[in-house]
């Protein structure tokens, strides 16, 4: 029997922006088992609902993650709005879609850059992040923030975007298509990139479902599942089909995210063409009494906010199940059989956000 070695991977590692630890059991250079450890930065933000007014907690929810901050805030708002049976203005629903898709675009571009960096392809990393800057500029112009938007609120949104600016955003995004295609084509067609991704870390269709993985990881294994199809915000009025791939390998996960970049431009285009005039928020009175599981699609997949309230200004419980938490079992399935050198790339293909996971 080949001698087994255990190699600790993380929580500090050059490719990991955030701390996750894996004990990798190896036979020669091949991984045979991986045991994860998280909890290095557990913040206990969920516990704060017991001390923060339910209206103010949106600020905390947005700070759960520095990448999909808007969607966190929005999902919390949806949970409370569903409990309180609040119907927000239609214009606010469309604005939520626009900011959600901009979040998805900057997150996927961030991921593409990190992926290129993990492959040692530094120029591709810089080009990906150069494009991300353009999306961040749009976010900054429309919200005043680049990381924390501060635009979600219970009862609607805090800020409007005038119609001329919305049209200019669509025009700019469409003009980025050519550059985006040039950059993403390198991920799709370059032999040196393909060599590191094709056939690496395959997650079979049945395993993906069985292990409860979500988002691009699930769709890359052939499942047409996207929480946006639930129709929250204005997604019920948007025509789109979830992007899927069949192979379930690292290349498929990369392809799904690339196609979703372009899909987000189409969704924003549709939203801008359909957005009605009108108010962006309604006044919220009373306190929540009840519970709801709000589900939305973050760039990394389905997030669930379970809010439970008993008619006071403080919730009794808020539980956030983040997509990275759901994707860890999938990662543990992908790793056995892979080469030690591929482990950093494989970990990145689930687009781990430990900040969310440790909430």
């Amino acid at each position, binding site marked *: 029997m080949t001698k087994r070695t255990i190699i600790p991977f993380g929580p500090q590692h050059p490719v990991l922006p955030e701390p996750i630890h894996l004990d990798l059991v190896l036979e020669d250079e091949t991984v045979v088992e991986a045991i994860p450890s998280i909890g290095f930065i557990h913040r206990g933000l969920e516990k704060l609902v017991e001390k923060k007014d339910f209206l103010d907690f949106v600020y905390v929810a947005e700070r759960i993650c520095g990448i999909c901050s808007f969607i966190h805030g929005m999902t919390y708002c949806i949970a409370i709005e569903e409990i309180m049976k609040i119907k927000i203005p239609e214009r606010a629903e469309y604005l939520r879609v626009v900011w959600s898709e901009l979040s998805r675009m900057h997150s996927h571009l961030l991921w593409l850059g990190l992926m290129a960096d993990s492959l040692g392809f530094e120029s591709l990393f810089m080009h990906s992040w150069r494009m991300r800057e353009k999306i961040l500029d749009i976010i900054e112009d429309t919200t005043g923030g680049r990381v924390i938007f501060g635009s979600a609120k219970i009862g609607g949104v805090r800020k409007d975007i005038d119609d001329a600016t919305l049209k200019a955003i669509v025009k700019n995004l469409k003009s980025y298509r050519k550059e985006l295609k040039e950059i993403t084509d390198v991920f799709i067609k370059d032999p040196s990139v393909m060599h590191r991704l094709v056939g690496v870390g395959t997650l079979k269709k049945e395993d993906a479902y069985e292990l409860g993985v979500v988002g691009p990881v699930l769709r890359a294994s052939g499942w047409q599942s996207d929480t946006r199809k639930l129709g*929250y915000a204005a997604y019920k009025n948007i025509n789109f089909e979830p992007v899927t791939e069949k192979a379930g390998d690292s290349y498929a996960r990369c392809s799904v995210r690339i196609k979703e970049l372009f899909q987000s431009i189409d969704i924003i285009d549709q939203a801008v063409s359909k957005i009605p005039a009108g108010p962006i928020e309604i006044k919220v009175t009373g306190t929540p009494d009840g519970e709801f599981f709000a589900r939305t699609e973050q760039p990394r997949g389905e997030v*669930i906010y379970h809010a439970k309230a008993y008619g006071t200004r403080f919730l009794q419980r808020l539980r956030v199940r983040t997509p990275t938490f759901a994707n860890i*079992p999938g990662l543990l399935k992908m790793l056995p059989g892979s080469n030690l050198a591929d482990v950093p790339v494989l970990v990145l293909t689930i687009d781990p956000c430990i900040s969310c996971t440790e909430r």
Partner: protein
Amino acid sequence: MMEEQKRIDIKPDELPAKVSEMHSSGYRLVQIDCSGTGAIEINYSFDKGYSFVNLKLTIPSVDTEVPSVSAIYRNAFLYENEMNDLFGVKVKNISIDYKGNFYRTTVKRPFNPEAQS
């Protein structure tokens, strides 16, 4: 209303059978969570084709042992370890049991002060 959410109350001894039923019906386990400080409410949530079903189990205190469902749904071990570390809920026969070391919190069972003693 965004979506219909079906909720079913269950008893501890019904848990494995009900979860097996969900599994054989093709539902995926989307999350397990806990709430409460005295009596503990545990929610097992499932999804199939955007249809959300929640099994709600209430136990009188954290001293009541709950059977693990990790043999039925392999991803359940993460949620079950989390319940143990944050609330002190005792889950029996978890496939990968971290025995209280999943989260490195300075305060043990931080979400349930009654379970700290």
